[in-house]
């Protein structure tokens, strides 16, 4: 197990550099005129242009310029310095302010997905073809079919503005209640997928040999389901949720925008819109680490759930 983790960590280092290189190259290639993009439609003075060009080495172009800027960036990164955004703010500070709220939002979303998704999935799996099963099928299909960009404003309008159950936006320092609606919206998609996965898995495992054995031993139904079936059914769900953690952190661009939560997705969106290369690469680098770590945790959890899985 220890050797497995070390090997994975070493692979992560390679993966990290590979992805930052690709992201940096994409930003570099897609960059038109970041100084003008920053200014919008206002003309940029020569003094301002010269100042920013020098500060961010924007005159280093072509393949040579790319590697010069990339290595400059990486060497700063290794010293723990993520650099400055084009508006002169430290990206480290931006991320330090953005992460806590994004993590809280993601945790609420995951909790929603696990609590409602897995529970409803187990129930639907046990009572296959019942009214409950069909109702959840219909509901989850509906949720899966509505993209967040539609769902989030709708939820905001009805629950926040019209019926005033939740505050319509969360803001920078929200309490748990203010984050609940965005959390539910964000988690609803994961909830639907987790529900379908659990249901299928439970339904299948209920017909497995070991369940028949357990029942014939006279074990109470509750124990059969909660220990034997559930544990074996959770592996695909855990795989899905592990990947989803990364998705939820990076993919909250729409939700964070609609509910005005200045988290990671909010900043990523601004970085892309203003062609702020350093900011985008900084955020994506950290997201890469999040993905890698959550995948590692999922792999380790497999072994916990199913002792037959061994890592060497």
């Amino acid at each position, binding site marked *: 197990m220890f050797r497995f983790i070390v090997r994975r960590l070493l692979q992560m280092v390679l993966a990290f550099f590979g992805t930052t290189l690709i992201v940096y190259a994409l930003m570099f290639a897609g960059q*038109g*005129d970041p100084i*003008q*993009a*920053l*200014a*919008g*439609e*206002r*003309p940029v*003075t*020569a*003094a*301002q242009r*010269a*100042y*920013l060009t020098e*500060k961010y080495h924007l005159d280093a172009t072509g393949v040579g310029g790319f590697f010069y800027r990339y290595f400059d960036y990486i060497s700063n990164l290794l010293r723990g310095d993520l650099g400055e955004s084009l*508006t*002169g*703010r430290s990206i480290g*500070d*931006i991320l330090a*302010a*953005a992460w806590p709220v994004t993590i809280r939002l993601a945790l609420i979303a995951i909790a929603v997905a696990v609590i409602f998704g897995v529970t409803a999935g187990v129930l639907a799996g046990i009572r296959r073809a019942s009214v409950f099963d069909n109702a959840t099928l219909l509901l989850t299909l509906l949720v899966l079919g509505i993209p967040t960009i539609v769902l989030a*404003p709708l939820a*905001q*309008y009805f629950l*926040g*503005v019209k019926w*005033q159950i939740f*505050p*319509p*936006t969360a*803001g*920078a*320092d929200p309490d748990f209640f203010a984050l609940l609606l965005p959390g539910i919206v964000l988690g609803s998609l994961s909830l639907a997928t987790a529900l379908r996965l659990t249901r299928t898995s439970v339904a299948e495992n209920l017909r497995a040999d070991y369940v028949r054995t357990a029942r014939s031993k006279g074990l109470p139904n509750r124990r059969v389901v909660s220990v034997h079936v559930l544990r074996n059914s959770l592996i695909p769900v855990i795989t899905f949720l592990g990947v989803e953690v990364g998705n939820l952190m990076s993919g909250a661009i729409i939700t964070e*925008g*609609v*509910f*005005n939560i*200045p988290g990671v997705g*909010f*900043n990523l*969106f*601004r970085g892309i819109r203003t062609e702020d290369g350093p900011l985008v690469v900084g955020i994506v680098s950290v997201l890469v680490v999040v993905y890698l770590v959550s995948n590692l945790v999922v792999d380790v959890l497999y072994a916990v759930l199913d002792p037959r899985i061994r890592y060497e």
Partner: protein
Amino acid sequence: MRVRRLAAWTALPLAVTLGLVACGSGGDGGSGESDPNAAVRIEIAEPQHLVPTNTNETSGSQVLAALFSPLVDYDEAHKPYEVAAESITSEDNTTWTIKLKDGYTFHNGEQVTADNYIDAWNYGAYAPNGQNSSYFFEKIAGYDDLQGESPKAETLGGLKEVDDLTFTVTLSQPYSEFKSMLGYTAFYPLPEAAFSAPGELAEGFEQAPIGQGPFKMKGTWQHDAKVEVERYDAFPGEQPKVAGVEFRIYQQLTAAYADVLSDNLDVIKTIPTENLSTAGTDLGDRFLQSPASSLHFLAFPTFQEEFSNPDVRKAISMAIDRDEITRSIFKDSQQPARAFVSPAVAGYRENTVGAAGEFDPAKAKSLYQAAGGPSKITLSYNGDGGHKDWIDATCNQLKANLGVDCVGSAEPKFADLLTKVKAKQPVGLFRMGWIMDYPSMENYLGPLYSTNGSSNYYGYSNPDFDRLLAEGASAPSEEEAIKKYQEAEDLLAEDLPVVPLRFGQNNFGHSTKVKNVEMDLFDRVNLTKIEAIR
């Protein structure tokens, strides 16, 4: 103010259905009693900077307007009057004497002196400081010495202290409307505490700027979240009627709109495009409109052979039905324009474009054919500004009325369009917009149409026009200056280097908890007028 200059907004109002309620400028609205101890919440975007000489977008200048008091403000007729200044006078329009009012203090207790202005302006003009608004000082003598990578001088030769409260500004050329410029954000003073050494801004000053205005900072700038200010009781000018303001930062206007609807936010400065059609029903008399300084137009690349004939340009202008597009596409959130300067400045006249501004398809077609206009027209625009609808509508009108082929061509961003235009690539007609820096006709004419104008991308050059502008700048009085500028504007109507299409408007709204919400010509909420309702 180069706030969102050169056009268009990120949110160009393109409503989908009818339903705008036109309201007069200014807002009454509530009837409740005013509560002087309450704070109001106003929507802004994350400011780029909070240093006066580095701030040239509306969000930053809205915050600075709370913290600083300008030398001049503008009256109903858009003429400047003194605020922090006692008097601003000049004999020859070249040397200006600025006398400050006594009694103004910075929020840290420092007395405001002439040196505070001189130091701040020197800092702003010095090129290595890379300040966004440095060009505002280019009319001051000695500006050129501060440019380049290692400038010859560190201070503007044209700024001289006379006594504690008086200083003189010498311009490199006479300019009759210098006083009008002084209301802009770039001309605020900075306290000594702003500098760690002469000419060096103290680290962290931007996080909690110290001004001499009606409000002082409450805490620091909380990035992406809010900037809070509270009433500064030692302010000698007109005291605001609220205890404080929370400028709450939004990335998406739709989120701010939802907050205004549920009274979680008091003022939204721009109603998002998608909500314009329902704002009248949602907000009732809390949905307000007021004139803004922006002008939207289509520019001709006059350096291209096919557009070099003024008759071709006039025919195209006559073939466009501005009223129809403003009504059906913009749902009256903008106004049709038939002049080269905005109604926001003194000297504006309706209909200076003349016959070329009248929609007359039959005349347009015959004129177009007689002048030999091109059989295919391209309209270029930036695809990120919501311009597609009106560009397509304009194209359809040109097709129908001139019998030409017309296509709209989108560039990803305005920066990309500008790059092509500067390289004189054939992009056809291209859209542009303009927001004034300071209320003066000159600001709508000089940068856009003079031969060396900073934003003259269409290669227009008319020696008579340049001469009239110079005469206006050195005219002995503002009235005479305006006369010269109006003559210059008439020349534009003859040559028509651009087709003026629409004037912008502020479309804003407020919650049930505030009243007297007004927007000025710089897209800022008037913070001395606004009142909270008990």
